[in-house]
């Protein structure tokens, strides 16, 4: 019996030692990719840009060494007929194994998204087990996708983190962009009742300046990258850009607003009062009794008054009620504008189709194929808003009301 044991032991140790380093990869033998970008050049080839982290330069700053000498990231570009081919070509330029495990950003160029659509390029990303489905996806607005990765950034040492951080903060504080990850994109692409929305990002300034380390050695950067609107897709192709209130409307109907400001015009004066939404809940329901479903968007917002530029008496509950009414009207107007424009785009980015499907699967089956072109643009959408003012910050009335007296 013990001969077996010796045999077993030998096999085990030999497997352990022979197997050596199949999947083994030392951390310092990896080229850690922080972001990837896909462009298309004039020849119709895909251009893949990868942003690699220079660990020593990133960590150097933390350990007291100067980080001024060399940039924290290095960017390589390569071309190919498919995304993966471009990737292969990139490997010939880097001394280390390209590693996607920490790639947290995929940038797609506006041009590619508009002309060809994003459908063809995502499979390679989804299939690779190393690439995370939670990587954020961003559309480069008014710029090449690759350039977005080349620009160095201040504060955030790695530009990819700057992009992700900015989108995250914008979503939380303003509600004008949305964190969209690879999984969300693929899900909405495959869903018949919901279209894709992806946040945009743009480069301000000259890219040649932005590449240099001098750019971030000044207090005001010549070249920066910033969050810029929402890209609206229809069946995988970019059809429209929404900015400001319009994009906030999308985020709002998708119930992803966490905090945002609504500015009110009043009694002929513009921008007289700023209302900050601190909590909100949006519900979309469908009534499918008629042939054409009727959608209802119910918004319930709670918040504070943050800025007042007139003598409104905020101690008066009736006044508050009035303001609430006007706020409701304002929000309703904004949301309706968004819905109307989206219906003109014939792209159901709100997922109204999903709502219909859930409430009446049978009817949905009939409408499914023509949803975006026939049914969605003609939907009747009711927007019902309830807004509540809870507090008014550190002051009741504005000092303006005292000054007039």
């Amino acid at each position: 019996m013990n001969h077996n044991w010796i045999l077993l032991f030998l096999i085990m140790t030999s497997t352990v030692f022979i197997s050596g380093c199949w999947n083994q990869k030392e951390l310092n033998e990896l080229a850690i990719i922080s972001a990837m970008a896909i462009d298309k050049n004039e020849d119709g080839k895909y251009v893949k840009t990868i942003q690699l982290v220079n660990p020593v330069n990133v960590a150097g700053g933390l350990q007291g060494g100067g980080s001024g000498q060399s940039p924290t990231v290095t960017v390589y570009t390569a071309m190919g007929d498919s995304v993966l081919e471009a990737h292969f070509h990139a490997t010939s330029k880097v001394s280390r194994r390209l590693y996607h495990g920490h790639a947290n950003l995929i940038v797609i160029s506006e041009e590619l998204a508009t002309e060809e659509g994003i459908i063809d390029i995502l499979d390679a990303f989804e299939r690779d087990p190393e690439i995370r489905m939670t990587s954020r996806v961003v559309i480069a607005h008014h710029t090449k996708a690759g350039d977005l990765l080349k620009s160095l950034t201040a504060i955030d040492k790695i530009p990819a983190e700057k992009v992700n951080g900015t989108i995250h903060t914008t979503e939380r504080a303003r509600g004008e962009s949305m964190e969209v990850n690879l999984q969300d994109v693929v899900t909405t692409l495959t869903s018949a009742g919901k279209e894709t929305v992806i946040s945009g990002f743009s480069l301000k300034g000259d890219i040649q300046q932005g590449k240099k380390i001098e750019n971030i050695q000044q207090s005001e950067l010549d070249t920066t990258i910033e969050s810029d609107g929402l890209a609206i897709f229809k069946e995988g192709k970019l059809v429209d850009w929404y900015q400001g209130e319009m994009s906030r409307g999308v985020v709002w109907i998708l119930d992803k607003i966490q905090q945002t400001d609504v500015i009110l015009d009043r009694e002929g004066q513009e921008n007289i009062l700023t209302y900050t939404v601190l909590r909100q809940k949006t519900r979309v329901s469908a009534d499918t009794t008629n042939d054409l479903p009727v959608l209802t968007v119910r918004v319930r917002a709670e918040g504070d008054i943050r800025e007042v530029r007139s003598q409104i008496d905020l101690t008066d509950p009736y006044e508050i009620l009035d303001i609430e009414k006007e706020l409701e009207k304002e929000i309703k107007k904004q949301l309706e504008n968004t819905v109307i424009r989206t219906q003109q785009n014939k792209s159901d980015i709100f997922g109204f189709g999903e709502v219909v499907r859930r409430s009446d699967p049978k009817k949905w089956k009939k409408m499914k194929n023509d949803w975006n072109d026939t049914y969605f643009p003609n939907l009747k959408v009711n927007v019902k808003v309830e807004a509540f003012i809870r507090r008014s910050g550190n002051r009741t009335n504005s000092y303006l009301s005292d000054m007039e007296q």
Partner: protein
Amino acid sequence: MEKAKISAYQLFILIVLFELGSALLVPIAIEAKQDAWLAILIGMVGGFCLYLVYHGLYSYYPDIPPTEYSQKIMGSFLGKILAFIYVLYFIYLSARVLRDFGEMLITSFYWDTPLFILNTLMALLVIYTVRKGIEVLARTSELLFVLIFLLGISVLFLIVVSGIIQISNLKPVLEEGIKPVLKTTFTQTLYFPFGEVIIFAMILPYLNRPEKVKQIGLLAIGFSGLILASVMAINVSVLDVNNITRSPFPLLSTIQTIEVAGFLERLDVYFILITVIGVFFKMCVFFYASVVGTANLFNVKESARLAFPLGLAILILSITIASNYSEHIKEGLHVITLYLHLPLQVIIPSLLLLIAFIKNKKKKSKHSKNLFPKRKYRLVERDKK
């Protein structure tokens, strides 16, 4: 049969871990779309019925394994052939589980490592364990169950906290009516994983309290059914049905989606831990049954001696069973359910039960004394103590 006894609680855990083993890995019942959980629950009810059949047989022959009582029921020759078929079936199933597992590791984590090596390591561990006997296996399961339970709870907590559950993905319920759900149940979930409980017919004779077999088995199947159903429901609500149908290992995708507090993300290791432990027990139970069955059939005194050769056979079988993953899955979901699971899990046991029932009725009329074979066994057991 080795002289060993396991407790009711140990049996419960073994059944639960066995059921969860590879079923947590693969997208079971996904043909039923977002109603997969329902298909699993209906499959669970079917599993109850099947278990009652196996238990019926057990209550006629409480202290011998199926490889032996099949000979008592069908006669020596036919019974031996039947027992042989079952042993082969068990070996085949353990090879399948091993392959499932190896494929999972290769696709998700170890794409540069040969399948053979990954499978070898697992097979060696299983051989080592099975040689130690059922008692050690049962005790190990008690300890690792706690670990898997804690892992499960923490994963659930993280999923809930990261806010990725969208219950709306589960709606509409029964979009296409009940038909596809029932179809999935009867072509899949009834046999995998619930019908596979037939393997425990080999282990039931070891239980120290035979009167609890029925209750414990049903409880365990119910418990694991609920877990599987809720895991599938969570998968669907996190990933959306379309993504699941395209992902070979939905639970892995779900865990990969977790993002909590900026640093609790990419928790793939959780998945490795859960599946390695789960698959380890499933393999062990299958393999143990194969070893004990073979020993019993060919009158080998020391069944542990068979562990090594049989383990090698299973290892090689697991590599040669299919040339690629699609073939493996296609075989698993369509071929063997119809030609192996259905006859071996449902039809033959029911027939055996019927024959055993008739035989015992005849006996009963002859010796009206021996009304309940179970009770007789209990007396014997008490005497032993």
